[in-house]
């Protein structure tokens, strides 16, 4: 309104470009989510573990060094399950394939769903821990009082950095909600909670 014709055109052009940049940045924010995942998986940032099973690579076992692999399992609120591991830690050579059994027990009488979320420390080891078969992130269903044993087959890559001597693999059990979502009182407003 305050501008003459050529100014009007200029303003319109500026606005169109700005809005385009704006939408681009909004989309970029969402694109950052998968990009971050890719970035994490490439760099092992944050101990975030690649959840797809890998084929065994038959490479020469590096007999010269032993790596201690620790396993820790943790429960969480809202899931009456227990997760245990047959051995707390094992020593393996890089390149060697190893297997360890994890047991899930449902302590309640009702069936329920859960999921074990893995995390690796130190994070620089993440990309060198290759899981050949794994239950990570997969939903598990247990009937009331059911007990289930699943193996984890893994291999440490031979190019594991020299300075790493201990790797800790932690699984945290989380409940999977199969009931209808009740967003507004999912925190603490509901009266029936202690």
């Amino acid at each position: 309104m305050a501008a003459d014709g050529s100014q009007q055109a200029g303003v319109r052009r500026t606005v169109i470009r700005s809005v385009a940049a704006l939408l681009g940045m909004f989309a970029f924010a969402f694109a950052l989510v998968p990009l971050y995942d890719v970035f994490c998986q490439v760099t092992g940032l944050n101990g975030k573990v690649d959840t797809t099973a890998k084929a065994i690579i038959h490479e020469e076992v590096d007999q010269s060094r032993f790596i201690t692999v620790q396993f820790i399992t943790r429960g969480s609120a809202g899931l009456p399950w227990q997760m245990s591991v047959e051995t707390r830690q094992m020593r393996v050579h890089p390149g060697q394939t190893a297997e360890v059994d994890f047991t899930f027990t449902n302590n309640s009488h009702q069936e329920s769903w859960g999921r074990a979320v893995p995390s690796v420390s130190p994070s620089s080891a993440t990309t060198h821990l290759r899981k050949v078969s794994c239950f990570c992130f997969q939903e598990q269903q247990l009937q009331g009082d059911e007990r289930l044993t699943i193996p984890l087959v893994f291999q440490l890559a031979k190019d594991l950095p020299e300075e790493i001597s201990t790797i800790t693999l932690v699984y945290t059990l989380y409940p999977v909600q199969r009931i209808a979502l009740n967003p507004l009182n999912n925190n603490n407003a509901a009266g029936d909670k202690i």
Partner: protein
Amino acid sequence: MRLPWQWLLTITSVASLSQAHASSWNMPVGVTDTSRNIFGLHMTIFWVCVVIGVIVFGVMFYSLFRYRHSKGAKAARFHEHTSVEVLWTAIPILILVGMAVPATATLKNMYDASEADLDIMITGQQWRWRYEYLGEDIAYTSNLSTTREQIRGESERDEHYLLDVDEPLVLPINRKVRFLMTSDDVIHSWWVPELAVKQDTIPGFINENWVQINEPGIYRGQCAELCGVNHGFMPIVVHAMEEAEFETWLEERKEAAEQEAMGVDREWAIEELMARGEEVYQSICSSCHQGEGQGAPPAFPALAGNEQLINELDWHLDRVINGVSGAAMPAFRNTLNPVEIAAVVTYTRNAWGNETGDTVQPATVAERIAQ
């Protein structure tokens, strides 16, 4: 309440602060090599800033004084000078590079948690810390032990007000201890200034840190990341011991755990359960459900007069053992032992007018947990 003259006294005492709290004006030097390195970096960068500040502000105040309009100063007209500009860009860069080198070295050292002698898992929970000595079968939670009366000003505050816990983390000196850190609910941050360890605990993820303490002593810290209502009330106390003393402590701790486990097998009287339950309630539950079970609705439901709690024993047990997903109520299955759970459930079912007369035996709880 303080009287006005007491305020006056406090204000005047500020003048003598430097005497009274000489050590609390600055970052502690700490008791680890890392903390000493960090202190060194801190003081170096501080003095660099002071020197730059003296030069810049010196020139500035000189100009303000010397070139006052009221004194008839005539303004010069210059407005650029390339070589001066290059100089004041280059010098800071050199100073920064000089700072970056030692900082990098310290950081690399802080990131090397390998070759540890002892592994401890630290778990943040709203609003307490849980310590697990991996491979030693020792695990316990550490709660604020400052009383409600002190916080509310109803009794004298002691020396370690808000910085005291029921069970400190016990560590040996001269040994490299690796911390694995995670959280059960929101992000917390485990911080002890004198150890120079501050690390976020993140739900579902694991962080690593380490410490090697040089001197025995008691070191205090606090949660550093806003984690909800009682963020200000989850302190950390580390008790660092000589190695031999630590070994003894470890043994005693294991024996005590066995003793407690044996308690599961016998029948407990209601008075015993009530007494034990009150202890547990006050240290664990009262931060949310309040001292008299009145709760703080809607966030924290009342327990006193709670119909569902009174009528449904099974539901009540389930809440305590398994927690409530997505709410502040944690699962105490792994945190408390069966005796403690039985005691606290019995207590809450019989205190503050909840006169159900129920007793829950540790054996029942153990069975429910283990099946």
